[in-house]
């Protein structure tokens, strides 16, 4: 799967606008990828996210469905994630379902600002708060706990590599623990995530190195398992 480099902000916004109108005319006025920044959410450091997440996985969305919240009347959008690697926690059967508030179901449409909805083909590193509880957003810290992956060609050789980006499209250069910022709201990126603003796609860190650095943030540095 190849993806273009992150477009410039104005173009992205205009493209998002057109896509929004198109999607709206089909049924729902929010974007598949949504806005990258979270709702009114507190800022987390990457160390906090890594330690508080029940599950950290590299996964790909292989299916998306919408239905009503059990016992309720609110639509939610559920993505089926095929797990390629587990950094923390465990996944039974190599697949995982995560549901997000919003969607179109039961004749109702609901959009939640800041929500990033799964779409088929999306691949990333996901810091999952809980697989048991039905959270409005299962990704810890919203956009702070999601790192999309893109297959990028090596600028010198013909090899390609999966590289890591922030939810708002900036190439991740490195991962640090992140300092304290009590009471501050999130700007969409966890503290401690070092990015190369305006960098080339190949400037982003390789997914293998990213996972190694994330594992180093965990207290016992224990690897996860896919059962």
């Amino acid at each position: 799967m190849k993806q273009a480099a992150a477009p410039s902000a104005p173009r992205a916004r205009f493209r998002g606008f057109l896509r929004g109108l198109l999607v709206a005319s089909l049924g729902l006025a929010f974007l598949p990828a949504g806005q990258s920044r979270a709702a009114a959410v507190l800022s987390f450091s990457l160390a906090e996210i890594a330690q508080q997440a029940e599950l950290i996985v590299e996964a790909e969305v292989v299916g998306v469905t919408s239905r009503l919240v059990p016992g309720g009347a609110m639509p939610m959008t559920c993505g089926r994630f095929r797990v390629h690697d587990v950094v923390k926690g465990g996944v039974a059967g190599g697949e995982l379902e995560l549901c997000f508030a919003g969607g179109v179901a039961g004749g109702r449409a609901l959009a939640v600002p800041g929500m990033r909805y799964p779409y088929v083909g999306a691949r990333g590193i996901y810091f999952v708060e809980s697989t048991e509880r039905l959270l409005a957003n299962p990704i810890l810290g919203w956009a702070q706990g999601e790192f999309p992956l893109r297959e990028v060609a090596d600028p010198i050789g013909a090899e390609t590599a999966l590289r890591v980006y922030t939810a708002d499209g900036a190439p991740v250069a490195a991962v640090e623990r992140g300092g304290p910022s009590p009471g501050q709201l999130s700007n969409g990126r966890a503290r401690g995530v070092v990015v190369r603003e305006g960098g080339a796609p190949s400037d982003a860190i390789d997914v293998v190195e990213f996972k190694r650095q994330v594992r180093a943030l965990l207290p016992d540095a224990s690897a996860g398992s896919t059962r």
Partner: protein
Amino acid sequence: MRVGVALLVVLAAAVLLRPAPTGSFGWSGLRWPTPEATQYVGLAPPFDESYEGAMQDWTDGTGFEFSIVKEYRDPCESGFGNSTENGVEFSDKACGMEWPSGTLAMTFRHPSIGIAVLTGTGVVFNDNLDWGFYNGPPDPELIDFRRVAFHELGHVIGLEHEGSADAVMHPSSTLFEVLQVDDYAGVVTIYPDIDNPPPPPSPDAKPPPPPLDPRVACAKQHLLAAGKLCNKAIKCQAKDWIRGPDPPALLKCVEKAEVRFVDVYSAAVERAVDRGDSCKLDDDPGDVLSNLDSMMAVVVDRVTDSGNRGDESEAKLVGRLLKDSARYCGKISRIESKDAVRGNESVRVKRRQKARAGFEKKFSKKVDKGADAGVVYNGRPVNEVGDAVDTFADVFAAQAVD
């Protein structure tokens, strides 16, 4: 469906043909059919006033018209069916789902299926967190309600997050307490049909003061009322000494001060009751007045003690000293009312000491000047008069403030 498509085309045309935006605001493509929305607010005080104030700020600052109905509507049902009512609430659930960690509030927007038009929105605040009111840097233990409400209402209007410019809609909106130019640009661009939009916000606009807790507001009003009472009532006595005894005029003057006191006192209690709260001092204002009258009588007695009303010069001196005492009483009651709001003990003590020193200086100067002119002051020493006035303010402040 044809109507929907036509509306979509009109909206798209209106947006694409609009003047170039001056900001970099975010927008998903959703908007209300017209630049207006009715918001049902059934929050408990003082959150209701704060929420309504935030709505008013959007209306005043952009021309988007929020209408307020002071009733509860379920925000999770807003916009469904035939409902176009926008609700808001505190809840320990996010519309049937659990709150994700660190999430303060969510806005649920319901677009009409088929067209990019909002039919309703719901704002839900996380009731598992501690909410309060303050200006300035964030307190990790307490979320400032107004700023979060202000931000969520931007989503209600249709705005998305904007991270590249100063904006209330910046996702880290912790620092933005007033409407920014980018927010304004967003609203007037999404809604080119706003008639006569106001001018863009000033970059140096100041945030509104946080609302008062109803009980604090009560204490403030009660202390101000008591200060006005002693200021007026003791001045009535002063006038009686300066102009000569006139019992009917004295009675009328004191009654006027007391009626004013009862009015202000009772209005504060009624406002608190309307908000579903109560003042600390919610007794019959007549009983409160009786206590205050007895404390004012001590002040008057100490100044007039052994005074000779038959000596016109001495009577005028006593009258002027009563006026000083009245002013001092009003002043320290005002200091106490400010302290009820701010709760800064060091500032309170400093102001009280300054006021007391000023009072004693003026009082003593008049006594000395009288003595130089051969007019003897036969009342109690200035420190005893000052103590009596202090007692009036201190006792009442202790009763009125938690």
